[in-house]
Structure formats: structure tokens, C-alpha cells
């Protein structure tokens, strides 16, 4: 790591300041984390707005007064989670040595994000006959999302693990009365929540991998030069 940074610092003449900044690994990590954090915050705000509109989630009434109608802690939490997941995915890819091979383009990532928002939209707006149907549909959609945009076993595993953990955390939060769902059907929460978490993890992982691609490219070229 230190070697890397010194190397890139030692050869600033070769590249512009932007490239050398990206080459710097810690800097790169920070930038990526910040970007992922912002993506997470943004998605949390927008998607929560969808849920609050349809009275799916209830927050204490005094908080609901602004557009940021949920609790203040929610977006930062989502942002942090997004940053962690988004950094974890490329890292895991590198560790496992099986890089993500599917079409790695920004247009694909955008498509993935759009589908994710669509899944949320459907969960909030489409009127289903019963909750089981809703949950099953969303689960199928989430797996479809994984198959379309990820297709890596590691991605699936990580997604499932994080979805389970997040569901547990939400259960605890609701149990302690921080907020509540209007019509819980899976202990204290809605049964489609794990699916949403899973889809979110896949999406954020996709973004993280795409962001990491830049660093990967630069470092690849560097090793080649050496």
C-alpha cells in the first residue's frame, strides 16, 4: 500500500493530477466510499419517500414535517451501509480471484439501479391481493435482478447474508419501538423487506464494482509498466 502510494507519488510527471489522485489507493478508496455514501443517502431518501407516501412506514408524527420525512438517522445509516457494501464487493472479488465478468458498463449499472427503484416502486404502489404474493413476486424480481446484472455466486451469497443481517437489525429496531410498519406480517416487519435488502445489496455492489473498475484499470496498467 505504502509502496503503491509512493510509486504513484514518485511519478507525478507522467500523469495529470487527476489520474495520480485516482491512482493513490487510499485516496481512491475515500472517493469511492464518499460516492457510495452519497448514492446510499439519495436512494434512502427517495425510496423512503415512496414508502411514507403510501403510509407503509410510520415514523413518530412530530418528525413528519418536511420532505425528509423520516428520521434523521436513516439516510446516514443507509449511506454507510452502501459504502461498506460497495467497497466490500470488489474487495471480495479480488480475494476470491473471480472478477466480475458480466458486462461492466455504466449503462448496465444504470439499468440495475432503475430496476431496483422499480422494485421499490412496485412494493409501495402496486396493490397486491395478499402479502405472500407480494413477497413472492418481489423475491422473484430480486433474484431476476441478480441474474441479470450480477450472476456471481459470491454476489449472491453476500447479498443473502447482508439481507438477513439487515432484516434482523430492522426487527430489533421495530421491536424497540424506533419506528413501525403499518401492517406487519413477518414478526414486526413486512415480509418483502429481505427481498428489497437483497436487491439493494446487489445494486450497490454493482455500483461499487463499477467504481472500482477505474482503480483496477489504473493499477493494471501500472503493474504492466513495472
Amino acid at each position, binding site marked *: 500500500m505504502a509502496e503503491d502510494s509512493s510509486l504513484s507519488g514518485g511519478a507525478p510527471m507522467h500523469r*495529470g493530477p487527476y489520474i495520480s489522485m485516482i491512482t493513490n489507493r487510499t485516496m481512491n478508496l475515500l472517493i469511492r466510499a464518499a460516492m457510495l455514501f452519497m448514492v446510499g443517502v439519495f436512494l434512502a431518501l427517495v425510496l423512503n419517500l415512496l414508502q411514507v407516501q403510501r403510509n407503509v412506514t410510520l415514523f413518530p408524527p412530530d418528525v413528519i414535517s418536511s420532505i425528509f420525512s423520516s428520521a434523521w438517522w436513516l439516510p446516514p445509516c443507509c449511506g454507510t451501509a452502501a459504502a461498506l457494501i460497495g467497497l466490500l464487493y470488489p474487495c471480495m472479488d479480488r480475494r476470491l480471484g473471480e472478477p466480475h465478468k458480466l458486462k461492466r458498463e*455504466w449503462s448496465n449499472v444504470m*439499468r440495475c439501479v432503475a430496476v431496483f427503484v422499480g422494485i421499490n416502486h412496485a412494493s409501495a404502489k402496486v396493490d397486491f391481493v395478499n402479502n405472500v*404474493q407480494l413477497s413472492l413476486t418481489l423475491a422473484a424480481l430480486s433474484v431476476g435482478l441478480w441474474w441479470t446484472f450480477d450472476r456471481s455466486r459470491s454476489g449472491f451469497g453476500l447479498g443473502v447474508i447482508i439481507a438477513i443481517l439487515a432484516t434482523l437489525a430492522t426487527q430489533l429496531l421495530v421491536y424497540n419501538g424506533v419506528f413501525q410498519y403499518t401492517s406487519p406480517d413477518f414478526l414486526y416487519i413486512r415480509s418483502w423487506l429481505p427481498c428489497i435488502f437483497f436487491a439493494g445489496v446487489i445494486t450497490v455492489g454493482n455500483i461499487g464494482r463499477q467504481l472500482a473498475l477505474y482503480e483496477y484499470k489504473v493499477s493494471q496498467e501500472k503493474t504492466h509498466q513495472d
Partner: protein
Amino acid sequence: MNEIQEERLRQNISAAFYRHGLLCASYPVPIILFTSASILTCCYPLLKLPLPGTGPVEFTTGVRDYSTPSHESQGDLSERPDWYRGPPVAYIQQVLVKAAVSPWDNSLVPVDVFRSPLGRVFSVLEEIRNHVYTDRSLEALCLQVTDLLPGLRRMQAVLPEHGCLLVSPGNYWQNRRDLFDADPDLLKTVHQHEPKGLHTSATLKDLLFGVPGKQTGVNLYSKKRVVTYTITIALSSYDARFVASLRARLKQLHPSANCTLREDHMVHVHFKEEIGIAELIPLVTTYIILFAYIYFSTRKIDMVKSKWGLALAAVVTVLSSLLMSVGLCTLFGLTPTLNGGEIFPYLVVVIGLENVLVLTKSVVSTPVDLEVKLRIAQGLSNESWSIMKNMATELCIILIGYFTFVPAIQEFCLFAVVGLVSDFFLQMFFFTTVLSIDIRRMELADLNRRLPAEAGMPPPKPGPLRPRETPPPPRPSPHTITLQAPAFRNLRLPKRLRVVYFLARTRLAQRIIMVGTVIWIGILVYTDPAGLRTFLAAQVSEQSPLGEAGLPPHLGVAPVFPGGDPTSTLSGLPAPEPTPLPENQSQGHRAAHPEVAPVSSPQITWGPEDEELWRRLSFRHWPSLFSYYNITLAKRYISILPVIPVTLHLSPQEAIDTRHPQDTHHAPPPSIKTSDLQTDLTLYKVAALGLFAGVVLVLLLFCLYRVLCPRNYGQNGVPHGRRRRGDLPCDEYGYSPPISEISPLLLRGHSMDIECLASDGMLLASCCLVGHIRVWDAQTGDCLTVIPNNGLRRSSSSGCWEHRDGWDHISACEAESLLGADFREPGGGAVGGQDVDIFPIRRRTTPARPALFGDQPDLTPLIDTNFGLSPPSQALSSSGFDFGGLVEKAYQEHEPSPTLAFPPSPPPVLPPELPPQNNGDWDSSVWAMELRGNLIATGRSSGKLELWDAVEGSLRCSNEDGVSGITALAFLNNRIVAARLNGSLDFFTVEITKPLGLLQYRGPPGRGSLPPSPCYSSEDVISCQLTRSVQCAHQKPITVLKAAAGRVVTGSQDHTVRVYRLEDSCCLFTLQGHSGGITAIYIDQTMVLASGGQDGTICVWDVLTGSRVSHVYGHRGDVTSLVCTTSCIISSGLDDLICIWDRSTGIKLYSIQQEVGCGASLGVISESLLVTGGQGCVSFWDLNYGDLLQTVYLGQSSEGQSVRQLLVLDNAAIVCDFGSELSLVYVPSVLEKLD
């Protein structure tokens, strides 16, 4: 078995796609017409769908047979809209009160116009509240409301809570007469709730008065002196008898004469779902994601003629497939119930642009030399399998979605399926055809470009052949700007400039302002039609000839008595109106009124416009009223009952009685004229303000423009002939690069075009078509030596040139047998003898070249050093620039040197300048030339290699081992490598034998500094020995030969690149990767090897391992030259494009489009400065940003001359050929940068 079947299927699909591609490319126009027709046909059912919008929808029914519609839809009533089900949210009953004090007399103050009429509202209210019809009271029927929304606490005092929703102007005073009477300033009370600034929705005044603000008449300057207001009652259930009795009661109490309002219709108003900000944010987000998706997708389209055109076609394909899907679904009876705006982005994402991009990529990557038809067909068939597979997968996924049996998802899936199919159809027909047209255009443009620009003949059809983006042909001024319009360049400008350019190019600011204004006006008209429409109506009615000319003026003066019948008054008139409609009579009457005498009694008239006065209210009037009580009207409807007219006539006495003591303190009423002005004052104010803002904006933009574009932007009339040399080209936007004077130094002397150019940093050697070699000082530009074609020999003793052609013919055969590799062999004696034998022929001169080569070396006409600014004159020759004298002096100095040089040499003293010539190659031309130290190596078409002394101009050695012409030479560390036409490669070693007694002798004078690498003094005996000859280095002629870092790299037309080690001439690698002949090679000290070929590809190789690092497809046509810096590769091609690639990743950073026929020569001066040769000029570019720094014009009449060769010298000078001249350009700024 299964695999075989799959393979067969695959082949079938591929063949079908191939045929389809041929069809599409063959008949583009009919197919596009057919597709457009089918799109339009499929979209036709969309016309029946209501336009999207949030405006309310109305439905009118009769009052008499009204019954609350049931919840079930009844199919029998087809005209009944589907929202008209179930009871409405409320029935709105309005009581329209028109009140006036009449007759008006001058003792009354302006406040009297509305104080007593408003005061009467309380009695009417009382009447309504207390009205009972068969034990039904208003309390039982009216809509009971609860709390106001928490955010509306300031309205609590005004709007009713916990009771009937009944609003009237009385609410301002809590419906209490005593508060009203005690109110000193009614207007202030009314207006204190009005919001400031522009408002588009209903205000409190509108809500309470129930009529548009202008019509209430509650102001001090009312012309009509009639006060209008409504009492609005919201009923929860409709009791026809109660309403009828209320109507009868009020009419009876306050009869309205001449009232012809229709009372038999009730209007049901349905409100669409409102989109709040909270719903808008996710929607906007999805659209942003959609646009990002489209952006990232279309960005990948590359290598086509018009990127934007294809991107547009792709988007059109997707959008029209969506429209087709909706249209088809509608056609087959499925009405869309989903919110189109919401699901639209998801549909686009599901259908996707991928196929389109894959198609483009596949077609583009087919071989360029094929016919367009075949390319399209091949591209299609290559991707056919994956397209079909993807399509099948998507259809499967969507079908799975269909079986979720959720109505919304099913509908979505249905749309998606139809959309996918129609998208496939459009891709196959529409997009493929567009692509074929695009590719054809590109090839035409290529063809056009390949025609040499010097040919001078204009293309027969310049219009269709030229790309659309190219500007009109250059102006016939001598110094045209060599760059194309910046829009065509793909540059990296500084960000700030790019933003400014973008703004300027698109005129974004102006367009935004324009669009903003239009939208604003649209919003005004749409949301608040009352104000504008009434204003317009008033204008029209005031100016209408009907009102002014149609009625005699005395009509308005006639007093209209309260309760009097106006029709009787009218009947007495001659009634000259051309269109005497009964409704229009009263209106015309009223309209004529304002024109009459200042003091007139107000009169109350009822016209059809009063029937549905609520229509003039904002369409958000009712939703906002109900939303105060948290009742939403979205997707619901209200029923508006016919209005109950109430006319109140008050006597002046009554008005005086109800006066508040402060009322009289008000100023007396101003004259009608001024009041007339006053009413319109707001309008004028707004207009003045707008005008002022506009002027300020214009001034601001003008200043901005002056600041940003200080030069003559947009002035086409600037005569370009006035542009001096060195004048900088000004951008389209007036941006000009920083000026630093760079004046080229022209080196003249050659009589023909310069063929070869070589330099070692200090010296510069050039060779022209005739074969004359000239050596110049690279620092000063002085001509040091002239070596004529070797048919002419210079005798150093006499200092004259002599023709030797006759000798050559005679001695050809003998010399060939006599001479080995080294002419300094002892056998030289015989040679010398032969030389003596033919001596007499020496003196013979041919008449062909008598002028140039006289007896005396009069070099003044040859060495004409033009310094650009002062014209060449006779004074030059006599001044210090007389190089003839200088060279002569140098000759004098060296005259004794031959005798001094060879005392130890073998007895037959042979002057080195008289080497034996063996064959008749004086007419063989120089094909390659290299310069190291002060030795010039020339390779001739006859296969002869010669070494010349650069300073003395004497032939030091020559070698005729090969007979095939030398196409390229490399001279590196006393080794010379010659590539020959037959594909063989010869390695020579230059050996220097220092003469014994003269080791201390210094090198040639005339140049201050010592040349770098091997320095050969003129006394050294130089021999050139063939060490190795690789006979079949390549199968075809070697085109490029480069040597650096101990490696020799050759490129040949046989598509391969070979790497040899210089020391042992051993072939290390044969690099294969190109699919065309090699045209350019770059290798430098860091062992970076890049090669470019005729196929337009550029390969980067690892010289150590022989592996290919990257392979990019960069140019259409040959790669003409290649240069690398430490971070990037710069290539230029026959397509006049200069591409800059990232060296390690092979990603194209950007490209520069140059003018036709001038992109061949490249040079890198420093890490960030690129120099390119153009038509009579050289251009300097900043490599980091790709912007043009400067263009230096080489000569005055430089039209047809293009710079073909360009050398960068060590001292930050560049030298380039320029017809028969050489041009030496110093770049002083770079020197500073380097320091």
C-alpha cells in the same frame, strides 16, 4: 444430437438475418417509409386516449331527473364517463349575490359602493341558515367539516370549523354583523389574507367571495359600483326539494328581474390525481436514472458517421416501440389504467437500448472494405443468435411476471411484451436501415477524403458527399485557418472555456429564457385563466364595435330603474345591432355603460356569463377549499348545482346609515379617468418591470459577451486577406490562444521538392527529388554543404563541380568486379589508374545543368536564407549572410587536408573525394537518408549505400553490395541498417581507422559545438562493411525501419513487424497482429514499440517479450504516423484524424479532426506539446487538453503545399519540409518550459 439441432437453428437464424440485412441495406427508403407508416398506424388509436393532464373534467346532467349515480358501472349510458360513479364528495350550491347602491348620487363616498352591499350578506346568510323545509334544515344536509389542517392555523379565524362548510365574505368578520360594523377599513381586512407575490392557486379572497377577484367590485375605484359575491354551501347529500325551496325563498325575498339564468343543469367536475412534490421526487429520480441510462448507452456508439444521428435513431426506436405497444393494446380493447408517466421509465429500461448498440457495434466491426450491403448483412448475422437469445430470455421473464396475477403487473407485462416485439420489429427494419444509410454516408465521406486535396478538382457532388458537419469550403484567402469548425473537433478544453463555449454554441441562456417565458405564460393561462381571460374579455368588449358603434350613446345615460324592465327600454330603440341575440342585448348594454358620463347609477344585470361563474375561478379552487379540511378531491368529483341569483338594491340612505365613522375620511373619489388608469396600473407596473428586467438582462448578456468574446465574433465581413503571417487563428467564439511570436526560418536552396530529411540535433540534412543533399546548421539555419547528385563531382582542389556521367558509363562493368565492400582496399591502385584513364572526360559538362554549376562556387543564388520579414535582396549577399564566402573559406581551409590526411595510406594516393564509381546511378534517386555525427548515410534506389561527410560534402565511402533499392535506413552507433525493396535487410558496420599522425586533429571547423555520438573527423578512414544480410527478412517490401535502444524494428507490407538485435543482427521476434501492411512504427529508448498498419489498427508491443500489449482500431484507412510520449500514443491516419490514446490502457482519450489531406506528420516537442503539419503551416497543440495553441504559417503562398515530413530537434526546434524549402521553427516558449 441436440447440439446439432441447435447449430442448425443457429445457422438458419444467421442466414435469415443475413438475407434481411441485405434487404434492408438494398432498399433503405421504401423500408423506412414502410416502418414510419406502420408506426403511425399503430399509434393511431392513441388519438382516442385523453391527453394527460391534471385539469378537471366536466360532465353535465339535468337537474330534474338527477339521481345519485350508483357504484356499479352501467354499460347502457355510453356517454357517461367512468368516473361518474357513486356520490360526489359534495354538492356545491352557490348563491350569487349582486348588490348595488342605487340610485348613486354624488354625496356618497367610494366606500359606500361595497360597505352596505357587503353588510347585507349577514341577513342573507341568516336566511339560508334558518331555512327549513319540511323538518329538513341546512344543518342536516350540509357537509360537516372538522378541524382545519394543522398548518392553516392563521386561517382558523376565517374558515368555518366543526360545522357546515358554508363560506361567504361574512367569514372575514366571523359572520358577525357587529364586527363588520366596527371594522374601520374593510379593504384592509379583506386583503390582509392575500398572499404576496405571484400566486397560481386559489386565494382566500377567491374562496370566500366565490367569484374572481376582479369581479367582486370590492374596491374604491369600481366603475360599475356593483358588488358581486357568492355564498357557497357544500351539501353532503342532495335533497332536490330542499334546494328548490331555498331557491324559491331567496328569489322571492330578493327578486332578480330580467334574470334568465338557466337552472336545469348541474355540472359534475372530476379532478385528476394531483402530483405533489413528494410523489414528484421519486418520479424525477426514475427519469434521471433513465436519462443516465440512455446517456451511458448511446455514448458507446462509435465509429459511425453521425453519432448523434444514430443515438437519436436508437431513442426513437425505443420510444416509438412503446407508443406502438400502447397503441396496439388500445386497439385490442385494453385501456391503460396505469399511470403512464410512472411506468414509462421502467418500460424503457426493460426494453433497453442494448440490442441497438450491439447491432451497431457488430456492423461497425465488419471489414471496412466490404460493400455496405454485405457489411450490414454480416453484422446482423453475427449478432443474430445473441439477439434472439436475449429476446427469448426477456420474453420468458416477462411471461413469468404475467403469471403473478397481480393486475398492475400483468398490465405492465402485457405492455412490455408488445413493446418488446414491436421494438424488435423496429430494430430490424428501422434501425438497421438507418445504420446502413449512415455507413454508406461514412464510406462516401471516406472516399471523398481519400481524394488528394491537391488534386484540385472539386467533387462532382459536393453536397451529398460531404459530411453534414463540415463547414462550407474554405474561403479563397491565402491564409485559411487549417482547422475545421470547433464543433467538429473533439477537444479537451479547459472546463471553464468548455462551459462558455457550450453556452455560446447552443445559445442556451436565450433558449432557457424563452422556454421559461413560454412555460410561465402557459402556467398562467392554464392555472389562473380567470385573471387573464377576464382581462382579455374586458379588452375585447371595450373595443368591440358592437359596444361603441352598435348602440347610440344616449342609451347608457338613460336611467335604469330598479326593478325596471330593461327589455322595455330596449324595445323602444331602433335596435340597430346586426346580431340582436337576446343574451347579447344586456351584455351590449352593459358594455356600453363604461363609456358614459362619470356619474351614473349602477345597474345590476344578469347575463349568461353569470350562470357558471365558478368556471372563471382557478381550477384549483375547489380542491384547495376541500384540502383545507384534509378532504382530497383527487380522482373524485363534485357536483355543482345551478346558481341561485340574488339581487340586492340598496338605497343611498341605507348606505349612509351603515357607514363607519372613518369611511368619510377617505379621499374623495378620483375622477373616472384616473381611476380608470388606476385599475390598469398594476398591469402597467408589471409591464414596466418586465421591460426593465429585459433591458437589464440584455445589457448583462451584452457585457458578458464583450468580456468573453473580445474579438470579432460573428463578424463575417472581416477580410481574411488582411491576416498577416503569424496571425493567430481566432476561434469561432473569438478565443485566441496566447500570442507568442513564432516566425519560421525558411531554408531555401533546393530546386525540387524535398524527399528526405534527417537530423542529429545539430546538423540537418535534406535531400530533394533531384538528389541534391544539403546540410544545414540546425541552430542558425546556415547552409553548410551542398552535395549534388553524385553524377556531379566536386573537385576540392579547384572548388568546382564536374560532370561525371560519361565516366560512369565507361567504368561500370570493371568497377563492379573490382570493388569489394571497402573501396580502401589495396586494389585501389588499379582503380586509381582507371580514374586517370578517364580523366579527360571530366571536363565535359552537359548543357542540361550549366547555370547552377559554374566554375566558381557562386552559392548566393542557391543559399537564399529568407528570414521571413525582410524580402531577399541584393544587400544580403554583400552582408554577413553571404554563405558563399563562408563555404568558400571552409573549402580553403580544407584544401590542404587531403594531402595531409593520407600520408600513411598506401602508395597510390587516392583523394577520398574521388571514389570509384561503378555503375550509372547518378540518376538513381535517394530513397533514404540518415545523419549521425557528421556522416550522412544515403540509400539509393539502385541499392547503393553511401556515406558522405556532412561538412565537407565529400563521399567517404560507399557500398554496392545490394542491388535492390534501399527503402529505409537506420544509423545507430556506427551501425547502419538498410532495408531493401526486396524485403532483405542489410546490416553494415562503419569502421573508423584513425590516421596515425593526426590523432590530435580536431574535427571540422565551422560549427562551434561538437556533434554528439560518433564524431568522424574528415581525416579518418571510414569503411562501411556489410556484416550480415538477412535475405528474406520479409516477404514483401520493407516499408518502415526504426532503430532505438539496440533494437531494429522493421515493418513490411507482409503485415508483420520484426524485431532484430542491432549487435548481432539476430531476429528476436516476428510480431503478427495487423491485417494490413505496416505503415508506421515507433520505438524509443524505453523500448516502447508501437506499430500502425493499413488496416487502421495500432498495436503496442512489449519488445522484451514480443507480446502484444494493446490493440486498438483507430483509423479508417492507413495509420500514417505514430508518436509516443510517456503517457500517450499519438497517431494520425489517412482519415485526417489525430487520435490520442492512453498508452497503457489503449483507451482513446480524444481525437482531433484535421483538414483534408494534412494529417500525416507528427512530432512531440515536449511531454505536452504536439506539433502537426498542415497545409502550409504547422500547428502546436497542448496534449493535456487537446487545444490548439498556435498555428504557424510557413509562407505567404502556401496554398497547395502541405508539410509531409516533420522532425523535432533537440533544441526545441522543429524542421519540416515545405515544398522545395525547409522550414525551421523555434518554439521559444517550450524552452522556458523545459527549463
